[in-house]
C-alpha cells in the first residue's frame, strides 16, 4: 500500500526561507534511508504559496485567486509517496523523520484500484468501456 506523507507549511516555508544546513543534511540522510529500504517512491518540497494560485469552481464560472494564502497551517509545503506494508510501518518510518519544534506531519493512505470495488459505478464502467472502444476503433 502507498501512503502520502504531507508536510505542512509554516512561517519559514511560506517566507521562502530554506532550512539550514543541518536540517537539510539530516533530511538527506533520512531520504537515503527511505530509498535504501525501497520505501520511497517520490518526494518533493513545494515553493511558498505566494508562487502558487487557486482556481475556484462555481457552476460554469472559474475564478483564479493568486497566492499567497493566509492559513499557513493548512498549506502543504512538501510531500512524500511511500510504499509500505502497513499503516504501522508508515508511522514507524515517519517517527524517524528529522522534524522538530511542534511540527505535525500527516499520513494518508492512497486509494489503490482494488479499493474502488463498489465505488466503480456502472457509469464509470461504461465510460471505461467507451474509452476502450474508442481506442479499439482507432486501431
Amino acid at each position: 500500500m502507498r501512503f502520502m506523507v504531507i508536510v505542512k507549511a509554516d512561517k519559514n516555508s511560506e517566507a521562502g526561507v530554506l532550512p539550514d544546513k543541518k536540517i537539510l543534511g539530516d533530511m538527506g540522510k533520512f531520504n537515503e534511508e527511505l530509498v535504501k529500504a525501497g520505501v520511497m517512491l517520490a518526494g518533493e518540497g513545494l515553493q511558498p504559496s505566494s508562487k502558487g494560485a487557486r482556481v475556484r469552481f462555481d457552476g460554469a464560472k472559474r475564478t483564479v485567486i493568486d497566492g499567497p494564502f493566509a492559513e499557513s497551517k493548512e498549506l502543504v509545503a512538501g510531500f512524500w509517496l511511500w510504499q509500505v506494508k502497513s499503516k504501522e510501518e508508515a508511522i514507524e518510518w515517519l517517527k524517524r523523520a528529522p522534524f522538530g519544534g511542534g511540527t505535525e506531519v500527516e499520513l494518508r493512505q492512497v486509494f489503490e484500484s482494488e479499493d474502488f470495488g463498489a465505488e466503480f459505478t456502472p457509469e464509470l464502467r461504461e465510460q471505461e468501456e467507451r474509452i476502450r472502444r474508442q481506442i479499439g476503433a482507432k486501431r
Partner: protein
Amino acid sequence: MAVAVPETNRAIDAVWRIESARLIAGLARMVGDVALAEDLAQDALVVALERWRESGVPENPGAWLMATAKRRAIDLLRRRKRLDRKHEELGREMDERQERAAPDLDAAIDDPVGDDLLGLVFLACHPVLSTEARVALTLRLLGGLTTEEIARAFLVPEATVAQRIVRAKRTLAEAHVPFEIPRGADLTVRLSSVLEVIYLVFNEGYSATAGDDWLRPELCEDALRLGRILAGLMPEEPEVHGLVALMEIQASRSRARVGPSGEPVLLFDQNRAMWDQLLIRRGLKALERAEGLCRTAGGALGPYTLQAAIAACHARARTPEETDWERIVALYDALGQLTPSPIVELNRAVAVGMAFGPEAGLEIVDTLVAEPALGNYHLLPSVRGDLLIKLGRVEEARKELLHAASLTRNKRERKLLMDRAAALG
C-alpha cells in the same frame, strides 16, 4: 513473540519489517548461523519493545537493536561454552567497541550494514537451496514477511512454508555455506540466482499461475521493494537496474490489467490512461541507468535490461498503434541470442506479427508447435489463435483459443479465453 495487545503487535511487526533484515544480516555474519541469527534478532526486538515502552524509542532504534542483539549473541555463545579463543577475542573486542562507541553507534554500524545485507541476500538465494526454498527464505529474511504472509501469497499451507524455511536454514548450515559476498565470475552466477528469485516473486504476483485472482499486487510490491533495496546495495550492476526497470514498468500496468469484474485485460485493450505514470518514470529512469552502465563498461545489454527495454517500448506508446514494433523485434532478436528459449521465440513471433504482418508471425509460431517445452503452455495456442483471427481463419482460431483455455490453471484467464472463442461466432 508473546505480546498480548494486537495494537502493539502491529507496531512490533512494523519495527520488525524495517529492522529485521539488517539485524539478521549483522548477526548472521557474526554467529555464522542464519537460524540462530533470526532467533537472536527476535529476542532483541522483544526486549527492545519492552524497554522502549518505558523509556521511549531511542534516537537510532536500528543501532540500539543491533547492540542489544549482539550482546545477547555473545552471552549465548559463552553460555554454550562453545567459545574457542577466537570467539573470546571477538567477544572482548565487541564489548570494548560497544563501550567505546556507545555514543556514536550510528557511525559504527553505518557502513558495514550494506555489506552484511548483501551477504544475507546471497545466502538466502544460494544455489544449494531449491528455488522454492530461496523464495521463501528471501521473503522471510529480507522482505520481513511472516510465514503466514508467505503462505497466503503462494496459496500453500503455513506449515509447508514454515517447514521449507526450517529446512532451508538447516541445508545452509549443513553445507557450511559461508556468509560472504561472491566476487569475480562467481558473482555473475550468484547474482543471476538472486535476480531470478526476485523476478519469480514478482511474476507470481503479476500473473498468478494458480488460483482465482489474476493479480496478487502485494507480491509485486514485495518483489519491487526487494529489487529497489538490491539496486541500492549494488548500484554498479546494470542487470539489477534492468530488473528494477522491468518490474516498475510492468507494475505500472497493474491497474489497467484487471477489468471491473476482475477479468484480465490484455495489453492492447488496456486503457493506457490508467497506467501509473510514476512507476513508468521510475522504470524508464532505472532502464537509463542500466543502459548507461552497460555503455560505460562496453558490454552488451543483459536479459533483464533487454526485457525492460521491450516493456519501455510499450510504456512510451500512448496508443497501441504508436508501438515501435520493429524495435521490439530487434530487442527480442538480441534476447533470443542471449538466452535462447521457446518462450522468447513465441514473444518474438507476436512482435514479428505486429511489425511485419500475421503471416510472418504465424510462420515462427508454427515452428514452435512441435516444441515439447511448450506442450502445456497455454500462451502458444492463444498466440496462434490471435494470428489466425487476423488471417481470417476463424475455425482454426476458435480451436486454438479453446485449447489454450483448457491449459491455463488460472480461472480468470480461462474465462477470458473461452469468451474470446465464443465471440468468434
